[in-house]
């Protein structure tokens, strides 16, 4: 690469950095490219990748996170303690188990109706869904064209951001989930039956 080309590239990278810095929500490479004009989407993607490496190797407390179909800057988890303190007493809110189950069903089966969720969970779920709507983790995605035209729900971008996902496709395939756990259970059980301490040695080997 010629020196002037290299220089130009470095300048473009700084522009990308500036845009990421000011944006509160993840920016897609397309969006960045439209703003920059000089760089097409594939170049922007290269620049983002370079920037990410730059941040990763520099040991900065901020990193470039690929999330919800875009890119953003965020502080590394090591600094969470202080960031939380800065936001004076900002409590760490955790979703309830019912909310997690409901979100999982919506995420994997979207778009779904309340009834679809209830069929799987076996318990009424309207209130849980309303709570998720309020937290903007799910949104209304129209109505199902069946009798009663029930509301359909989808997960939001905020859902992706909250769970650090690039897209819903990033979630592990559902079919693999039960099995993995089952295999693990079988292994655990065998270990227990054979009264073998597992790999972590702190278990007492009577």
């Amino acid at each position, binding site marked *: 690469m010629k020196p002037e080309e290299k220089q130009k590239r470095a300048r473009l990278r700084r522009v990308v950095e500036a845009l990421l810095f000011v944006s509160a929500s993840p920016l897609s490479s397309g969006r960045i490219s439209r703003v920059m004009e000089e760089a097409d989407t594939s170049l922007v993607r290269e620049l983002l990748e370079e920037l990410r490496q730059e941040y990763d190797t520099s040991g900065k407390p901020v990193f470039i996170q690929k999330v919800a179909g875009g890119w953003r800057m965020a502080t590394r988890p090591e600094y969470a303690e202080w960031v939380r303190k800065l936001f004076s007493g900002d409590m760490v809110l955790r979703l309830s188990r019912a909310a997690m189950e409901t979100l999982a069903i919506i995420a994997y089966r979207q778009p779904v109706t309340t009834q679809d969720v209830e069929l799987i969970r076996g318990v009424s779920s309207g209130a849980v869904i309303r709570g998720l709507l309020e937290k903007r983790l799910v949104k209304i995605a129209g109505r199902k064209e069946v009798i009663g035209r029930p509301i359909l729900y989808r997960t939001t971008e905020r859902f992706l951001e909250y769970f650090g996902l690039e897209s819903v496709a990033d979630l592990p395939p559902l079919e693999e989930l039960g099995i993995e*756990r089952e295999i693990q259970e079988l292994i655990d059980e065998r270990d227990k039956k054979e009264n073998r301490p597992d790999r972590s040695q702190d278990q007492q080997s009577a």
Partner: protein
Amino acid sequence: MSKPEVFSRQWKVDTENFEGPLDLLLHLIRSRDLDIYDIPIAEITSEYLKYLEIIKNLNIDNAGEFIVMAAVLMRIKSRMLLPSEDPESEEEESAEDMRRNLIERLIEYKRFKEAAGVLSDREERYSGIFPLQQYPVKEFGQEVEATLFDLLDAFRELVANAREDVKDIITEEISVEDKIRYILSILEKGSGRVEVEKFIENKRSVMDIIVTLLALLELARMRQIKIIQPVRFGKIFATGTGSSEPEPAPGSDG
């Protein structure tokens, strides 16, 4: 076993986070070391019914859901006792089909429970990552929308101040429609957010103040504007919603 006093109907268990019948079945399968793919219906039914007794006494709101499941289990169990003349018979759902259905439901539910676990792990991992510019207030909405009461408070104050000078209030008449057009014209000129007081042309006129309030409420209802209060108990602003071309006000007659 007689039920203890505490289990009387005086209190109700909030069930939003309470496990349902499928959780109970999974719990039984786990704790009794049963094979989920080959559930012994007779055994699990009797175990389930023991729990059902307790659940009924707990007076939880979704006890009905547990009872429905008990009925399903008992139906499978009773049908299994009947000799089936023709195993290929398609007339009625066989006990085996019903059992398979239940097993499939349980397995599906279990998968989603696992998926919920995956999400929980991710929540744990990503809750310590803060994007730039994200102030926690934004958790529930980009801009804090003022409540109706915030707006009423602001106007109540204005009305109280206007009352000192009441002589000229009867003379002029302003319609809500005119005010709506006035507000939209100001917002269209740009400049983002405008303090709601600015829409009142004559601050001494109670009529003007009230009409402005009604116009703002109407516009907010039609989603033509957003009423926001950036700082709690602070000044209230209106902004255009941006997206839409203003619709004519309802009942507007020019």
